[in-house]
């Protein structure tokens, strides 16, 4: 993307030519400055990478090393997969992983569809019941029901122990609707008018004109939704009694929220040697991070673009 231009600069002092490296129109700084920048960047990268490395390394470390280090290790001396084996044995976690993937994919798709449709109709002045619906959406932004009313509603709808209870209550976020509506409103009306002259109906205008222009905002809202569905566990605590339907985060929580957080309660009288608690917790972090880390690079391009929308006009 950056163009390196080497150009001759002829100066008036006897025609001596001096070649200078230019990067995107700016002269390239000298070696010391570049070195300093490199060091600063290295430190910045290390600040990001080291915690990750510590998490992965600790998850692979054995008890002796964790004890010697007093918690986190930077490099496992005797790497082993005991922590992962302990978590993944018995099939509970792998099952929960499938549940979470299902909820995330289905939930994100449903959320995006509903939010897009709602935001688009609310972005067109004069659409059916425009004002009351907009006010209702805004109302839910400012007044949220409590845990118990929400629970009672879910229960009365017969959704307890159903995957739907993990999707429907959070499917349409008012704030998302407002962001998307604002984005749609920025799309020039002339484009819509032109489409209409060409004979397109509202649905065609949405799918052929508006959505292709809105990839960035869709990616952003989609990612936000996916992360929220992926990380959600509290609704499952309340609505899902059947542990076979628990999402990954809730199952992993049973490892993290261990005795350490509540003072020891009972010692395991069989004297079973479990992997170190710290390694288990870090292994859990890795397991729950991987899917998001896999998806993020593909969305990141849109994500960055989406963040800049509206920042600069022109």
């Amino acid at each position: 993307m950056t163009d390196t231009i080497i150009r001759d600069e002829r100066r008036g002092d006897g025609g001596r030519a001096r070649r200078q490296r230019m990067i995107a129109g700016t002269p390239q700084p000298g070696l010391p400055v570049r070195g300093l920048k490199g060091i600063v960047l290295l430190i910045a990268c290390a600040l990001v990478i080291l915690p990750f490395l510590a998490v992965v390394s600790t998850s692979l470390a054995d008890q002796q090393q964790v004890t010697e280090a007093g918690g986190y290790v930077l490099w496992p001396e005797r790497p082993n997969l005991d922590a992962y084996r302990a978590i993944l044995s018995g099939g509970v976690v792998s099952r929960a992983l499938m549940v979470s993937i299902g909820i995330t994919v289905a939930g994100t798709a449903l959320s995006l569809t509903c939010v897009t449709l709602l935001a688009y109709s609310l972005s067109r002045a004069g659409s059916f019941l425009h004002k009351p619906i907009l006010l209702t959406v805004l109302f839910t932004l400012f007044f949220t029901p409590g845990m118990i009313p929400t629970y009672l509603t879910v229960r009365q709808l017969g959704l307890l122990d159903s995957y739907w209870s993990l999707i429907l209550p959070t499917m349409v976020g008012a704030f998302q609707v407002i962001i998307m509506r604002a984005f749609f409103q920025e799309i020039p009306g002339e484009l819509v008018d032109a489409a209409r002259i060409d004979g397109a109906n509202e649905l065609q205008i949405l799918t052929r004109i508006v959505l292709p222009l809105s990839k960035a905002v869709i990616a952003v809202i989609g990612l936000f939704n996916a992360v929220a569905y992926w990380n959600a566990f509290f609704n499952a605590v309340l609505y899902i009694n059947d542990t076979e339907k628990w999402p990954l985060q809730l199952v992993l929580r049973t490892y993290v929220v261990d005795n350490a957080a509540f003072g020891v309660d009972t010692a395991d009288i069989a004297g079973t040697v479990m992997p170190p608690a710290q390694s288990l917790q870090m292994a859990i972090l890795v397991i729950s991070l991987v899917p998001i880390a896999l998806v993020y690079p593909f969305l990141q391009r849109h994500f960055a673009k989406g963040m800049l929308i509206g920042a600069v006009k022109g």
Partner: protein
Amino acid sequence: MSDMRISRRRFLEVTGGLAAVVAAPSLLSACGGEGGTSPSDAASANNAVRLPTYTPWDQVSPDLPATPEGVMAGFYSYPTPVDAFSSPPLAGAEPVEILTSLLGPLPPAAGDNAYWQELNTRVGTDLNLTMTPQADYPNKLATVFAGGDLPDIMLINTTLANRSDVLTRLCADLTEFLSGDAVNEYPFLANIPADSWPNMVYGGGIYAVPIPRAVVGTIFFSRADLIAERGLNPEPADFAEFRELAEGLTDAANNRWAFGGGDTGNGKNVITFVGNMLGVPNAWKEEGGAFTSEHETEERKEAIARTAELVQAGVFHPDAIGGKLQERELFGNGTLAFRSDGYAGWDILADTYPVEVGAVQAPKFDGGGPGVVRAGATSFGYTAFKKADPERIQQLLALCNWLAAPLGTSEFMFRKFGIEGTHYTMENGAPVRTAQGDTEVKVPLEYVADSPHVLGPRDRARVDAQRAYQEAAIPNIVRSAAEGLYSDASVNKGGQLTKIADDGALEIIAGRQPIEYWDTVVDNWRRQGGDEVRAELEAAFAEAH
């Protein structure tokens, strides 16, 4: 947007919690109908109820028998198990719905869990457990009560708001089945020490079965090996010697410190221990019907001042105060020489780390004998039953009885370790879990009903050391004067009040406030609910005596 969702969830939790507190009384009175008892009726009746008679089960004798004062029984090895039941206790009964807490990893569901299937066979009916991680349990319980469809058996956690109302109006009265000698019908419930029962009494009736915990409570563990290595005195005779010991164990240059800040990171571990030297009461003391909180005593103030001095002296880990350390790991690798932990921590620390774990008794501050030992909570929670006909209640009690079969019975071995050959094998006289056992035998039955904890079975030296500690500590046990008395304010505002006191003490030991600041803290503590708790406790006490 994700922030938005998180904040919304937080908001739900907060408003939900409030809703539970606000909604519960009206909701409860709606369900309770006529016959609700007023607090004064309740207190006078509390006095009248006869607690279950304690009859230790004696078909298997431990190597070291339990004492009536609360020293735990000890086992050096696994006794040959006897069959305590000849037939499934709930044969032919309806399935039992159970709601309980989960403190470990989630076990596979019944369909994929050979242990759970065998459990159902041995009990005689299906046990349908709804398990909820401990941290989320209060919210789960609040929604279950709000929804109105209670399970047959539920664990009531100690922080549930309006606990007395919930138990007496929504749950079954167990008095006629458990009071006095009636409990002999359920020999393993009769085997639960008397210490665990008083808190099960509400409104003049027994409304729950305890999950017994030993009265010994929290222990101040030490790295006995480090103390010996440096030739220090492991049994300080007064505060000055204790301070010497702490200073002797501290070596800043080598990252060696005496204390961390405890699991709450506010130095309460040491404040409490120094308080034990000074004779600070356990939560509440009573004199002539008047109640005084531990926070209001001069001794408590003194304990905070002395702890602040210890912080100044540099014997605390530099990140201890106001931070949260991985204390167990740091104890294990020698960075910390002391750690305050529940009594079960002894085995956990000694099994996990290759170190010698010791326990320090608090001496009197100025010497001349032992200090006090604060009694621990004698029950993990309250196992309550949904209202039902007597026949069903008897079935549920029979289930709890089965679940409380102690070490020495085949029922205990199955409950804790599963099926021999499948979930565990016996090696050198002790069970060793198989991989399948590690995964499947995680059904949290111990948070439905359990037998009293015992020391061991472990190697003789450790059991003897634990036993010796308890024999020395138990005579100095102080119980709270509020034990067995109920105060709504104490349950509903307890967390907030504890925070006021802890935060105030933290300000002082961190050196941000002088010790005089403690008076302001106590004033605030009284205004925010401390006085209200006192008034309720005094009223309850007056009624009961």
